[in-house]
């Protein structure tokens, strides 16, 4: 610019020596530093009248312009300068109009991408007009036109009418620009495409081109201007400067500048500004937005977490599932209802309501059981039918209760519950006669079943001791009988615990007894005993196995969801799953634990998995979910080592594993095994019958392929009775 100014000054004739640098720079700028053109322009401008330059200066400096443009024929004097100053009595026509600042073109509303939106059309028009005015002036310019030509020199001002006419946000080019003649003193002429084409000589309409109709005119022409003298517009300072046109985000923001200075001052130098909370949050939001994008995809993308490491980090409470077993009417549900009530999992109101309803049905003692027995059928009959789950937490551990049905008709449900349990609570009815009948009944069967399902530890809650007035003899009697039975069933003595309690009154459950007669018991309460249970070992590193315990519709967005306990392995969002026996692959859309969305889950947790990419028909209760990398195989024939409860001969049986149940038949007894060593006894003699209590290896043929594999535990039932239980081989 400086060089150009010097060059122009040299080229100017001596008569034009008074021209200021600023005046030189302006045409230079507009002619893109073309020295020749600038000189020509300056010469043409300054030769006719010297005063023009001065007047222009005045006008450019103050952006306010009077409507009157009277010529000052004298050299500049203060008096003339203030000559037309109205001194507060400003005529209406000269009052400035404030115009909304020119908003940057956001293009937020779309619009066709403009190729080079550098200059607005108005700017361009102004430039064209300037050129034209200059041409006219050079060919004998009149005094009237000259000031007008000067007026348009300030390109920033030519943008003003646009700000007035434009509606914010829409691209400017969509409208025909405002009439170029509007700035001229001539009356405002209604613009048409014809006027436009006259302005631009390169565009000669072809003969076929029509004038727009009245309808088209409403679409394309600008609305008539408000009756205002355009000259009285007043731009807010700085708005019309070229800065407004440049990208406001190109440089560092003022905050960045300050932050950089601060960090430099505190010696952090090259590290750049530290991240503020705001930035972090912005990043989080950005991440969140990215995560949202992922939801568009048919399946959730895996975060590729190292689930095991995450699990270590998470330091969750120990989680333990226990199954409550016992003879029918031993008070299992009531005991658990009392437990939940005393631990404030269930509020008083709910219990009161249950009490009222139970009294109405004439079963007031069942009120606590209704906490777990939610089904109307269950409540009406007063028995648990299906597994009910509930949760509570102690200081150390988060427990999941699996309240199993005691009735022998619902043994499969009980097995399903037991297969998810880490340990068992055996509830025994201590009242006279009930214990004996129970021992013969499901007490024994349940204990054997949970043992065969792999449960190691059993807590025996001797219930209803209040009915025998907390007799210690009764407690000891039951304890001896049960412990001898459980030891024979294969439980270790150290894994047994006996607690006297009363489910109905709540003694020794969450609190110690207040009864005088119960003072003899000094051991732990049921809750304390539960808390003593060791953290269970989780098969985290093994391949994923999960038996589906429920299939349901998890909401509008999750058309298919399953729930179950992860038996082994781990999973995370986005993982591929293989559902057996259907052999269908699907993907995890989302995971939930305790109604809270999580990213991953590990063995031992009860999860709800929202699936994607699978039809409902392929997912059934009892199916096994595994990872496609190490799938579980469907087998039609299995060899298992079973403990016989009844006489086993080649017969049709029902093979139950968790919720999975399939019909099959024992096709061969491969041998009777020694209980201690596991060796085949009796040599090679073919065995035809396995007596109750014997350990035998049997071969079972199944009707259809089911997902079963080696360390799994199965129960064989026949005719509504459990005939054997054992390990797959």
């Amino acid at each position, binding site marked *: 610019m400086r060089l150009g100014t010097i060059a122009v000054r040299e080229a100017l004739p001596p008569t034009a020596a008074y021209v200021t640098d600023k005046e030189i720079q302006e045409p230079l700028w507009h002619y893109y530093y073309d020295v020749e053109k600038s000189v020509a322009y300056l010469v043409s401008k300054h030769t006719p009248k010297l005063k023009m330059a001065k007047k222009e200066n005045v006008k450019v400096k103050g952006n306010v312009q009077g409507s009157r443009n009277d010529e000052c024929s004298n050299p500049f004097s203060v008096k003339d300068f203030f000559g037309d100053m109205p001194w507060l009595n400003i005529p209406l026509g000269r009052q400035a109009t404030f115009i909304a600042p020119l908003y940057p073109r956001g293009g937020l*509303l*779309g*619009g*066709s*991408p*403009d*190729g*080079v*939106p*550098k*200059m*607005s*059309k108005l700017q*361009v*028009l102004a430039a*064209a007009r300037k050129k034209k005015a200059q041409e006219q002036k050079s060919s004998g310019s009149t005094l009237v036109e000259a000031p007008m030509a000067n007026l348009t020199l300030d390109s920033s001002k030519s943008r003003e009418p646009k700000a007035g006419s434009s509606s914010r946000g*829409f*691209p400017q*080019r*969509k409208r025909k*620009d405002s009439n170029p003649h509007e700035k001229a003193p001539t009356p405002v002429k209604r613009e048409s495409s014809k006027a436009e084409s006259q*302005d*631009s000589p*390169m*565009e000669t*309409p*072809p*003969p*076929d*081109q*029509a*004038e*727009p*109709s009245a*309808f*088209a005119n409403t*679409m*394309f022409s600008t609305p008539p201007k408000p009756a205002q003298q355009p000259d009285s517009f007043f731009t807010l300072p700085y708005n019309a400067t070229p800065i407004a046109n440049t990208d406001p985000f190109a440089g560092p923001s003022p905050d960045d500048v300050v932050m950089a200075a601060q960090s430099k001052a505190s010696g952090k130098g090259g590290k750049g500004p530290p991240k503020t909370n705001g930035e972090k949050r912005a990043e989080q939001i950005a991440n969140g937005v990215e995560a949202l994008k992922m939801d*568009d*995809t*048919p399946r959730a993308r895996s975060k590729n977490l190292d689930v095991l490491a995450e699990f270590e980090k998470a330091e969750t409470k120990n989680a333990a599932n226990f199954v409550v077993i016992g003879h029918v009417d031993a008070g299992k549900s009531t005991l658990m209802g009392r437990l939940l009530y005393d631990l404030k999992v269930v509020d008083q109101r709910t219990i009161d309501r249950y009490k009222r309803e139970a009294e109405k049905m004439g079963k007031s003692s069942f009120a606590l059981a209704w906490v777990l027995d939610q089904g109307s059928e269950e409540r009406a009959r007063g028995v648990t039918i299906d597994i009910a789950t509930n949760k509570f937490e102690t200081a150390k551990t988060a427990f999941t209760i699996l309240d199993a049905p005691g009735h022998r008709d619902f043994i499969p449900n009980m097995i399903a519950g037991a297969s998810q349990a880490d340990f068992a609570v055996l509830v025994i009815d201590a009242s006279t006669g009930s214990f004996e009948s129970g021992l013969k009944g499901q007490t024994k069967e349940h204990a054997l079943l949970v043992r065969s399902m792999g449960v190691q530890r059993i807590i025996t809650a001797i219930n209803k001791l209040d009915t025998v007035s907390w007799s210690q003899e009764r407690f000891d009697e039951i304890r001896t009988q049960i412990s001898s039975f459980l030891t024979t069933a294969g439980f270790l003595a150290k894994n047994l615990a006996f607690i006297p309690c009363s489910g109905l009154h709540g003694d020794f459950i969450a609190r110690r007894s207040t009864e005088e007669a119960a003072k003899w018991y000094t051991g732990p309460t049921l809750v304390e005993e539960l808390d003593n249970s060791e953290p269970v070992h989780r098969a985290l590193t093994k391949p994923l196995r999960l038996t589906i315990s429920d299939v349901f519709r998890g909401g509008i967005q999750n058309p298919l969801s399953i729930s179950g306990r992860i038996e082994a392995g781990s999973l995370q969002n986005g993982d591929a799953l293989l559902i057996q026996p259907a052999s269908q692959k699907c993907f995890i859309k989302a995971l939930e634990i305790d109604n809270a969305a999580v990213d991953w889950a590990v063995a031992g947790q009860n999860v709800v998995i929202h699936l994607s990419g699978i039809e409902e028909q392929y997912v059934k209760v009892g199916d096994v979910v595994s990872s496609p990398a190490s799938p579980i195989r469907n087998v039609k024939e299995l060899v298992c080592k079973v403990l016989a409860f009844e006489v086993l001969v080649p017969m049709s049986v029902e093979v139950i594993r968790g919720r999975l149940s399939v019909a099959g038949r024992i096709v061969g007894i491969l041998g009777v095994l020694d209980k201690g060593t596991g060796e085949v006894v009796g040599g090679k003699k073919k065995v035809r019958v396995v007596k109750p209590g014997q350990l035998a290896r049997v071969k079972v043929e199944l009707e259809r392929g089911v997902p079963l594999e080696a360390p799994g535990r199965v129960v064989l039932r026949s005719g509504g009775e459990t005939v054997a239980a054992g390990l797959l081989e």
Partner: protein
Amino acid sequence: MTDRRRINGPSGGTSAPVYSKYLTKDASTQIERPMRSRAPNVLRKMFLKTGVTPSASGSAYLELEASKSTNTNTPGLASLSTSGLKLTCTVHGPRPLPKSAPFSPHIILSTHVKYAPFATRKRRGYLRDSSERDLGVHLETALRGVIIGDRWPKSGVEVIITILEGEEDQWWGDDRGRGQVTAGEWGMMSVLSGCITVASAAIADAGIDCVDVVSGGVAAVVRGQGKQSTALVLDPVPPEHQEILAAAIVAYLPARDEITDLWVKGDIGNQAVQSSSYEELADNAVQAALGSHRVLVAALKETADMKLGRS
């Protein structure tokens, strides 16, 4: 398919009644069939402008002037006036295809042509009917050969044309059961020609690469003054002619001398007077397309100037 979403008016025409006194009085007030005032080889004047719809990637508006009624004494009823053609076209895209869509190595073009309910003398429905779908298919054919589709894999572009004022199929005076001589729906031809031109402008406005700008043109063989004579006219206005024997519409690329769409309707027949052949018809349609191409180019030049900041 029935439209169950709206309460629709009667399916029949809903234009205001025309009373017979206007039709049967003396010759001075007799409403006459509009006459073609242009020479047979002159097109109607066309107004074409891009950048109508700010929210679209590209848009254009086209109108053809209405033919003036020859009789100035006719009552100025709106229902008696003949209409021109007014089309507006928006182009959305190229934009990415939805995730669910299968992979496509080239751009997927979808065209929608819809008459506004008020566009024709007989009110149109809100759902596209078969003739509108037909126009859409023709338009797609015309445009598919023009767009360089390989440059946008996995993307789609939608061309949506709304016909604000449609060409009439016949003079309304004939619309009383007595004039149903020919195949009808001649207005569709001019509409399709306009659709092609306006879509071409909108696509250019959207900045989609094309091998050339395609323009549409119509030519028709009409029954002449004499009983047996036929005449070939460019850009026919159906109300102006007693009978249109055949019409052809082409979508023509002038720079490459290619035709991307050709649709001939009607029957020139093996009449004794073989004044015109189908080849001649198509050639004349190409001439008409050249005429509209000129307007198209002028409009696009204006667009380009506006975009490049020249004026």
